[in-house]
């Protein structure tokens, strides 16, 4: 009887400690839920070509912040839970500063010019590159082609044109003029930056000085406030909207213009979409005499300092960011590519006739300030922009206060 117990315990114990001789190298990363299954397919293709490497994509939650916490937790513990880091463009400076990523300059030099410039710029910290961009993303303006054509309007280039068209065609609350993401979250900062840039302002200048609190900054904030309260082309509820809320409003045909990310296109063209074939995409408008810039989003791969299989990671990253793999990811999961050449690919163009326009927009898209304390700066901006939208603070006061706080953060 005792012998049985001893043997069983030994077996259980050994199952904990046994290690099979490692034939395969295993590398993991934390990705998103992979709708469309594009990642799965590319991974299995890679594994077929590299039978000695096993790639595991751990599907994380949709929430970006949650996935960031998961990465940060494992880094803080010094764990090699994730070999590769599938990261948002705004994580790069933060993680790089902490020393959690290894520079990729060694093997990622010449290839860079094949990629969109904004994506590359956002992957560099203090002169070294830490991320190979895989998915590109930039804010665009969706509009109802049919409604504009009926009245003979051309798609707006300037904000004044957009206001004019909206005021003429809208019928609130059944049909609004313009919706954007105005909730207090990262999306708000993306929207604000586009408007700020379109008025000729910026947060930092080329030398890194804080120029947020400028006449252009005030004009930009004033403009956002006026959209709701003076021109009245945007509903008050905009202060609670994220991407999906604006998409539903646009897709249900209750707004003429909608600022959103490229992902919305495919969904608005689906079978049961009320706005199928009625949608156009153009650049974000700008102030008369200025230029328009979209905020750059997007994801890419870096390598964790703690990984024990760095060379396998390099192989995989090279593979998944290659022309063929990016094409597959696009066709299966709708991922916007980062390689310039793919925007002239015939197959892709057939499916997405708006891609040449999108390409131009992406070429001129700007990343958010590439700064390790960006998270704090962004949080300060979010609060104050939101207060202005709610009418709690005047634009000038908000910028004065925000400037003070950001300066404090920069000093640390």
């Amino acid at each position: 009887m005792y012998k049985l117990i001893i043997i069983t315990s030994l077996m259980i114990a050994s199952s904990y400690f046994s290690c099979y001789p490692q034939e395969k190298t295993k590398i993991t990363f934390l990705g998103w839920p992979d709708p469309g299954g594009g990642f799965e397919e590319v991974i299995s293709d890679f594994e077929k070509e590299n039978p000695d490497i096993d790639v595991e994509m751990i599907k994380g939650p949709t929430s970006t912040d949650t996935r960031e916490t998961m990465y940060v937790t494992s880094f803080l513990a010094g764990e090699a839970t994730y070999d590769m880091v599938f990261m948002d463009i705004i994580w790069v400076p933060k993680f790089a500063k902490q020393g959690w990523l290894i520079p990729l300059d060694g093997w990622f030099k010449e290839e860079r010019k094949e990629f969109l410039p904004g994506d590359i710029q956002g992957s560099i910290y203090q002169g070294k590159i830490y991320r190979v961009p895989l998915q590109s993303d930039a804010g665009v303006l969706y509009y109802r082609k049919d409604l504009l054509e009926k009245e003979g309007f051309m798609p707006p280039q300037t904000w004044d044109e957009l206001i004019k068209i909206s005021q003429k065609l809208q019928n609130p609350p059944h049909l609004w003029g313009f919706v954007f993401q105005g909730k207090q979250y990262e999306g708000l900062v993306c929207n604000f930056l586009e408007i700020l840039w379109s008025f000729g302002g910026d947060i930092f200048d080329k030398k890194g000085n804080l120029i947020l609190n400028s006449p252009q900054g005030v004009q930009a904030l004033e403009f956002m406030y006026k959209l709701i309260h003076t021109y009245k082309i945007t509903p008050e509820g905009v202060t609670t909207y994220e991407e999906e809320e604006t998409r539903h409003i646009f897709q249900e045909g209750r707004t003429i213009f909608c600022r959103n990310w490229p992902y919305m296109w495919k969904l608005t063209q689906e079978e049961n979409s009320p706005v199928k074939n009625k949608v156009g995409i153009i650049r974000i408008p700008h102030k008369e005499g200025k230029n328009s810039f979209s905020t750059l989003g997007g994801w890419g791969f870096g390598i964790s300092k703690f990984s024990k299989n760095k060379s396998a990671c390099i192989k995989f990253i090279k593979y998944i960011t290659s022309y063929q793999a990016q094409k597959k990811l696009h066709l299966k999961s709708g991922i916007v590519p980062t390689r310039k050449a793919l925007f002239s690919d015939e197959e892709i163009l057939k499916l997405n006739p708006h891609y040449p326009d999108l390409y131009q927009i992406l070429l001129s898209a700007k990343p958010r300030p590439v700064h390790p304390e960006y998270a704090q700066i962004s949080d300060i901006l979010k609060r104050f922009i939101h207060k202005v939208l709610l009418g709690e603070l005047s634009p000038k006061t908000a910028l004065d206060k925000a400037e003070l706080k950001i300066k404090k953060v920069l000093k640390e």
Partner: protein
Amino acid sequence: MPKSFDEQKFGLLLILPSFILLGLVALYPILRNLILSFTENDQFIGIKNFILLFQDERFKSSLFNTLLFCLISVPLQLFLGLVFALILQQRFFTRGFVRTSVFLPWALPTAVMAVAWKWIFNDTYGVFNDILLRLQIIKEPLAWLGKPDLAFFCIILAEVWKCTPFVTVILLAGLQSIPPELYEAISVDGANTLQRFRLITLPLLRPFLLVALVFRTIQALGVFDSIWVLTGGGPGGSTEPISLYVYDTVFRYLKFSYGSTMVIFSFILSLIFVFIFYKFWGDRQIEY
């Protein structure tokens, strides 16, 4: 009772496993945080972090939000919990079903229900606005999660809905532990319902009320999940509690020592509350 050495040994043995678990899982991280709060980048800097804390506007605002949140939601929960417990104590048809329904909000996963509440409070597609509009209580849809005061109302509603069952369960157990003979005895003396409640029920419920009060307050001070999902601390930071600011500080700004400072402060705050509660309502022997 002779307090023998064996009794000591036995007692120690009984609490040993809990002791070890607590030491390993709870104490070690706390000590680590304590040490961290006095350092910056691995250098000892004394109480500098604490001084910074008291000058931090965002911290003061989150402290205010947290305290306000507790001050409103906890008494509400205690009151409602008591009412529900009293009702559930009566014998009536379908009591079992009613009891199960009353426990339900506590049973649902917080984060998931918060997502549901977000949907319910949506200004365009939300049920809340829809019902209020139909009942003509409001004329236009309100942006519940978009205005500071309304958003605060929402987080309190979600919290009270979720946590009152906890109070109900504890108070119900308390009510059940009151010997019915006491009620019979006082009825014989001619007391009415209100007097019975005041002279017997409330005093005997006191230890249970205390437990409910302490636990609910502590959990309310540390509230995180539901607010993170529901409002993310917005609008304009008006619903941001301390724990959300701690989360941002540690996981998004990567300022670990400052985060530990906030945590230690939060702990001291909770300690103060517990101390006050015990001082005023604690451990008095009930004479039968």
